[in-house]
């Protein structure tokens, strides 16, 4: 860096201060700027794709903004869609700290929902303040066992967690169908097999002044708690080491097995909670509609957020917004539903590719600003 002749000591101090700030912000800025550039690149690519079909990409993006944040109504739609995605994404992000790719969160979601609905008739007379947490705890336990066993299979038996979790999701859905159509079926649900409806006291309502249920707040809290766990505790630090190099972690005497089972179980617990919230806030019972695909969108969000629980929040909101605008795009531009899937897929690929850009730009290097290079 060429030093500009400084007129006085005060100017020097100010310049040094600025450099200090820039050096400190360089790394966090990289975390924001690179995904942002990738995001914009994805939008441009998608725009070209849309133009190929003879549609106006600017109209599409205009509708997207309108459908996602254009009105208070649209904003609430985006928030409502983001709510289950927050918890679903954690089921991917937490195991990812240990280098595990778990993609079967959908299974824990449906089983968590079924667990909550199965418990509900047994605690029918209990007031909501006790009953709702009871259902939540039970659903989380079921989700934890489901995904935790994927972690256990990985550590103790060497079974690939990606395949195991995906296949177990199909088992979970089959199990749900069996329970909902068999032992847990409400005899009155003829053509749509469902469990008995939840008592009114066990339902989760909406946030006052909004049409969004409390699941949004729960999801955001879960992300914050996960961030603290990962970034501010020794457990999170141990997990990071085990994720980086298992052998090194074992040599250090870290309890790798317990970390793997613990983190997968925690992820599963959050997914189970998502299922319970779907049952208590949206459906009012458990039925086949529980397998709504949130677990799969959660994978996308976790990867977009690079498995950082705090980054999951904005990305879940963006994805919620994109999906909320999906309907408007279909209706106004007569584009098929797959349009938004193409956009999501493109964004996913572009952001994954952008991973290779980290550390390549000097301006994001603190040393550059300190004048060390």
């Amino acid at each position, binding site marked *: 860096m060429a030093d500009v002749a400084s007129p006085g000591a005060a100017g020097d101090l*100010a310049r040094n*201060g*600025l450099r200090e*700030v820039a050096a400190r912000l360089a790394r966090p800025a990289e975390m924001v700027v690179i995904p942002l550039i990738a995001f914009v690149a994805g939008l441009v690519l998608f725009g070209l794709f849309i133009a190929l079909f003879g549609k106006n990409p600017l109209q599409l993006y205009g509708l997207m*903004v*309108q*459908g996602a*944040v*254009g*009105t*208070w*109504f*649209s904003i609430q*739609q985006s928030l*409502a*869609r983001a709510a289950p995605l927050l918890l679903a994404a954690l089921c991917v992000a937490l195991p990812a700290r240990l280098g595990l790719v778990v993609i079967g969160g959908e299974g824990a979601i449906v089983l968590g929902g079924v667990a909550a609905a199965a418990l509900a008739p047994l605690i029918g007379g209990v007031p909501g303040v006790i009953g709702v947490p009871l259902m939540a705890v039970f659903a989380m336990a079921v989700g934890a066992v489901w995904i935790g066993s994927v972690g256990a299979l990985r550590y103790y038996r060497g079974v690939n967690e990606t395949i195991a979790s995906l296949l177990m999701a199909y088992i979970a859905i*089959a199990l749900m*169908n069996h329970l909902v*159509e*068999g032992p847990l079926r409400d005899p009155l649900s*003829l*053509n*749509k*097999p469902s469990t008995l409806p939840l008592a009114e006291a066990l339902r989760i309502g909406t946030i006052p002044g909004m049409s969004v249920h409390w699941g949004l707040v729960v999801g955001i809290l879960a992300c914050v708690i996960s961030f603290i766990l990962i970034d501010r505790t020794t457990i999170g630090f141990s997990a990071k080491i085990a994720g980086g190099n298992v052998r090194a972690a074992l040599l250090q005497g870290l309890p790798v097995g317990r970390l793997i089972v613990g983190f997968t179980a925690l992820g599963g617990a959050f997914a189970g909670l998502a299922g319970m919230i*779907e049952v208590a806030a*949206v*459906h*009012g019972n458990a*039925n*086949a*509609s529980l397998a*709504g*695909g949130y677990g799969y969108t959660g994978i996308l969000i976790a990867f977009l957020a690079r498995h950082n629980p705090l980054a999951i929040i904005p990305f879940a909101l963006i994805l919620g917004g994109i*999906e*909320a605008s*999906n*309907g*408007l795009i*279909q*209706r106004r531009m007569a584009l*098929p*539903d*797959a349009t938004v899937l193409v956009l999501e897929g493109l964004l996913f690929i572009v952001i994954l590719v952008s991973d290779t850009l980290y550390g390549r730009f000097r301006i994001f290097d603190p040393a550059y600003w300190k004048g060390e290079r």
Partner: protein
Amino acid sequence: MPLIKPSRREVLRAGASGLAIGALGLGLPVGRAFAADITVGFIYVGPRDDYGYNQAHAEGAAAVKLIPGVTVVEEENVAETVDVQQSMESMINLDGASLVFPTSFGYFDPHMLAVAGKYPDTQFRHCGGLWSEGVHPANTGSYFGYIGMGQYLNGIAAGHASRTKKIGFVAAKPIPQVLLNINSFALGARSVDPSITCQVIFTGEWSMAVREAEATNALIDQQADVITCHVDGPKVVVETAAGRNAFICGYHANQSPLAPSLYLTGAEWNWAEVYTGFVTAAMAGEPLPNFVRGGLAEGFVKMSPYGPALSEAARANIDAVKAEILAGGFSVIKGPLNDNKGAPLLAAGTAYVETAIELESMDYLVEGVIGSTA
């Protein structure tokens, strides 16, 4: 520490863009339709071109589009979650829809009921026949068709075409509607030749292409030479069966383009009849009926045009039975009738017409059907 202060110009610019965004939002309701015209919303659970359940509804919507003064807005692949509630609300708020048809069975409770409570001035009509007076809001309603008769006619076609005397049915779930179709198909075939058996395989899902293909292949491996189905999108079943040179009876929509030479006939929905009825009533300012049902006679259900493989004898037989059905009072489920485990279901002299309430809680497979509901 010196902070970067935004200039006044930057502040003004930011404020102006904020206002512009706000104005965009406020400007939205301006696009609403005029009172004379009407905007109608259709929501599908799967793709509009699935050769099945959703295509049948989309064809009905296409008929509505032809009515002058009607704007049709459509959404496909909408899950039976909070998604469909939002789609309905979005159609009402952003497009000014005053009549909404959420077409999937699972959209009714809690989704359509929840939205209907919030928008008492909007009319909702749901496909599936779940509405009951006094229980559900007055601005909601149901429509459905009796398609079991169509599967009975399919069965007659299959009975004439089958050489192995074995026919197959790929079914989604063992719920009353599906069981009635299976039983009707089997009874239709057995009215031609009582030695015919119908093997059923349940896939457990409304839409699960891989399992539908496996089930079709398994049925044909067991010598079934006529296949029909009750899944959301029959495309996979029809193409798989055609690939194995088995005859096909269609369901939901006309699948003959997928297998022109092997397609015998099919039981199709004719939602155009229902939707144009609702929409013209709404445009004339007449009150919409809350509960509408019909079968072949009312035009709610129709048969696909006969395929080239269907013999003259089969055509004559189907035409004769169809005439009886159209005349009214025809029963498919009638005594003496045993279930497929040999236990008596109906005594001689008992007969259920298609509107009989008893058929709506069907939980059995009749004699001649090989398979189990559980």
